[in-house]
């Protein structure tokens, strides 16, 4: 599979990553190689095989609807780069 510069820029944009020209070139190559490696899977005939939702053969891991104590607010906000009025503060979001 041939990856283009635009593909890398699109994925970078979705992931909110910023790259310079040199890096983009590098990832066109590296990401392309990874995808080529995975491409091998397409050699297998998967007709009639259900898609795998989870690699382990387990199901229905559920919890009871029972209250557990929440974090202390100070602790919850401890790692926030910015906080105000008991809230996480982020750059202004304009709709």
């Amino acid at each position, binding site marked *: 599979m041939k990856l283009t510069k635009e593909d890398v820029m*699109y994925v970078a*944009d*979705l992931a*909110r990553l910023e790259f310079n020209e040199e890096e983009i070139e590098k990832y066109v190559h590296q990401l392309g190689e990874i995808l080529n490696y995975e491409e091998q899977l397409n050699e297998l005939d998967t007709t009639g095989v259900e898609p795998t*939702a*989870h*690699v*382990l053969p*387990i*199901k*229905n*891991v*559920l*919890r*009871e*609807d*029972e*209250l*557990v*104590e*929440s*974090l202390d*607010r100070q602790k*919850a*906000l401890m790692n926030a780069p*910015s906080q*105000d*009025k*008991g*809230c*996480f*503060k*982020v*750059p*202004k*979001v304009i*709709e």
Partner: protein
Amino acid sequence: MDYEIVIGLEIHSELDTKTKIFCGCSTAFGAEENTQTCPVCLGLPGVLPVLNKKVVEYAVKAGIATDCKIARYSKMDRKNYFYPDLPKAYQISQFDLPICEAGSVEIDLGEYKKTIGITRIHIEEDAGKLIHDAGSGTLADNNRCGVPLIEIVTEPDMRSAEEARTFAEKIKSILEYTEVSDCKMQEGSLRFDVNLSVMKKGAKEFGTRTEMKNLNSFRALERAIEYESKRQIFEIERGNRIIQETRKWDDDKAESFSLRSKEEAHDYRYFPDPDLVPVVLTEDYIDNVKRHLPKLPWVRKAEYMEKWNLSEYDANVLTASKDIAEFFEKTVEACNDAKSAANWIMGEISAVLNEKSLGINEVAFAPEDLGELINLINKNTISGNIAKKVLKEMFETGKAPMSIVEEKNLAQMNDVSELKNMVLDVMKANPQSVEDLKGGKEKAIGFLVGQIMKQTKGKANPGMVNKLIKENLEKF
């Protein structure tokens, strides 16, 4: 040119669980900001979300009540996007294998009935709340992060604002009846997204649609649909193309505007959440939920019409909300007079509830008290008019009707000899009216009865007074 409006709805409803969908934090509304969070719902690294059992049960309940096929196998997926109300940068939702699919709900528009298709119901987590009014930045309160939701997606089967509203009301009633959600709209427990397009009448292909998000009242839903359909028709008439976009409804300004997002066309890159394992439901499990489903509104409605001979209209109104239906049933149990119970609840009581924006469970008296009030009327202890006064007092004090009647000395005067004396006095004092009545003017009797009612402050038995006047007419 005539146009047809094509509407599909996406309804988000917060489930009435005690705890969040993947952790044990409380879902209670109105807590201090960020006091109901933990590493799981804050999306801290290395945590393991575990699905709440009740969420599965409630989604299955909603699916059964809307005639959906319940998936024997479903899974959770990650929907990736960046927004400050979503700390993980992905929302856990369901993509290709939702828990319920292919259902339908019948709505009644009075003149006609219509079936609206349900495409799917899936479970997902709610996002946090952003507070925009802070000066320099935006504040995020993550208490709502991870509150369980179901999203109900319909087919584009609705053709008017009225149909959409009726459908939305029916969904609210179903979710309340099944106790899946408290549907408190002022708290955002029930929110609507509208997908809308217009096409020339008779056209085979739908027009380009727009989406309006997060309408949280029936009024906003109706008004947004009316505005957006007019806007689209106006654009088409002017030869413009409709752009597929998300628009925001501003209820204060009563208009919608484009949310031209700088983002790429949405690319959510869904994939199965590796932290969560598939949900596999057995026939037994589904049957068991079905068996424990509370009686649904249309079942109750049929019963009311059959058992108590109520009109379809009355039965509809009384069963639209579970609380009202239960209040009504308890009242009937206490007085055995369904017609009167229906009239009081739909008349006087509804008027007060609307005026004070109260729910029926918030009134100061119990349904048994209303039953007693009806009994007092039926036994001629009080008249209908006095009963209205007693009811007013019940709203204010919550006292039992009989004690109000005794305290205020409101019992009806049924004593014939006492009433007869009063009647004779009034007739003597109003010879003209007596003359008129004798001359065949039936209306004159109303005046005479009115005088008695005035003297007795409404307590005289009006039927008895009427009879006494007629009986004593020849004496004058």
